[in-house]
Structures are given as C-alpha cells and as structure tokens.
C-alpha cells in the first residue's frame, strides 16, 4: 500500500464561546481564545490518501483531482473566513482544532473515490496539531 500526502494552507478567524456557560466560566475555560472579536491562524492541512497505484497511471489518486477536492471542500469554505459565522458545517460547534479537523474529515471522506482517506493532520500553528486517522489503522506503522 502507498500513502500520498498533499498539503494546503488557509487562514481563518475564530473564537471560543459556549453559550451554556457564564461569561466568567467562558473566560476561565477558554482564556484569551474567548475574545469575542475573534483572532486568527494560518492553518496548514496535510491530507493523506492510502491505496494501491492504478496499474495504468501508476497513481493512487491523481493529485490534480485531490487539489480540486481540497479547493472546493476546504479552501472555498474556510480560507479567509470566520469559522464561527461563515462555515455552516461548524454551526453549533466550538471551532477548536479538534472540531475543525473532524468537520474536514467528514467533508473529504466521501469525496475520495480512488484510494481511501487515511489521515488528515490539521495544524492550527506550528506548535499545535490534530490528527484524524481512519479507524481501521493505527497511523504510522499500520499493516500493509
């Protein structure tokens, strides 16, 4: 099995606020991420597809196709947007790295028709990232 990874970068704003908590609790739990005016990040997203290369093309998945999927599903939705207000899939969710990664996984998984979505790694900053991995694998080192 071969894994191929494509990386994209997008920039977006967000803040963390749970309407079920008091203002004091929100501030205590979310700290400076609770600033209601929002703040932003340069996100980096690595998308890994696993599969066998097609015998004719030698490709697991045409990277042009993957690039178009990522443009349509992620960039058009999230790049230079406010994640609290402008992404319907995140409505009602606190746009943490965990939740944004989970939404991206759910958007991408059904669109990958050649090979399988194996992992996405979403960096909120160089020092913080979330991995979503296919349930059948244990990330690096899994069986062929």
């Amino acid at each position, binding site marked *: 099995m071969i894994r191929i990874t494509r990386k994209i970068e997008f920039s977006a704003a967000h803040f963390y606020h749970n309407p079920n*908590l008091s203002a004091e609790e929100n501030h205590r*739990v979310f700290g400076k991420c609770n600033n209601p005016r929002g703040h932003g990040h340069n996100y980096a997203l690595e998308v890994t597809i696993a599969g066998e290369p097609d015998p004719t093309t030698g490709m697991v998945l045409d990277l042009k196709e993957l690039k178009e999927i990522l443009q349509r599903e992620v960039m058009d939705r999230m790049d230079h947007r406010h994640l609290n207000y402008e992404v319907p899939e995140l409505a009602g*969710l*606190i746009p943490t790295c965990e*939740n944004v*990664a989970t939404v991206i996984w759910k958007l991408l998984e059904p669109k990958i028709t050649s090979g399988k979505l194996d992992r996405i790694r979403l960096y909120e900053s160089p*020092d*913080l990232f*979330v991995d979503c991995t296919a*349930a059948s694998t244990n990330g690096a080192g899994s069986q062929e």
Partner: protein
Amino acid sequence: MNLSLTRRYRFSASHRLDTPQFSEAENRRVYGKCNSPHGHGHNYALEVTVSGPVDSATGMIANLGELDPFVEQEVIGPFDHKYLNEEIAEFQSLVPTTENVCREIFRRLEKFPAARLERVRIEETSKNSFEIAREN
C-alpha cells in the same frame, strides 16, 4: 475515525553519554564525542500527543490551559537549561540518551489526568528524532 491532539514544546539542556558499566576507553569508543567529559547541549523539541473524547462543552480533547501547565511543571521546568545527568534524579543512574529521555518524559506525562497520553516524540536536533508510543 480516531482523533488525537499534539502539542509541541521546546527545552534546551546539556547531557553527557557515559556509563559506569564501561571502561573509560569503551565509553569513548561507544559514545564518541557525546562522551566529552563536561557535557554538551541541544535545543530539544518535544511533541506530546493525547487522545480521548472531545468534550462537547469545550470542543476539546484536552484544554491547553491544563496541558501546558502540566507539561511545564513535569518536564519543561525541571529540564530546561539544566544538566540532565546531574539535575534530573533519574539520570544519575541512567545514561540520558534521548531514548531514555523519551521514556522518562512519557513516564512523567502519563499521569496527565484529563486525557490519555499516546505518544512522546523528541527531536534532539533537526536530524535526529525519537519517539515512544503507548503499547496496547
């Protein structure tokens, strides 16, 4: 789908690779310049990976407001700008290779109460990295 969160930290420390089980010549042969008598140092990068359910109230596996102070207290505070051989009790009798540093940091962080520690990865330099994952 499995979900994990990884946070990256940094610390700078010195160490010396030397074991009393070897003669001076053997230490020199096995550890090379890492056996230099007064120690040497690295800028270590530490990646800490945790997993667990996403709390619906916070949207988080682990709140960095809890993870960061815990890692600071258990690892960064004790290790940063220290001589590992002499200032970390465990390395007074254990050679502080980055393999052993990985194990010791995993042992310390495994006590984190709010999520499950999955992996510790250390870059000793930009060319060498070491990692230890939970064995299931």
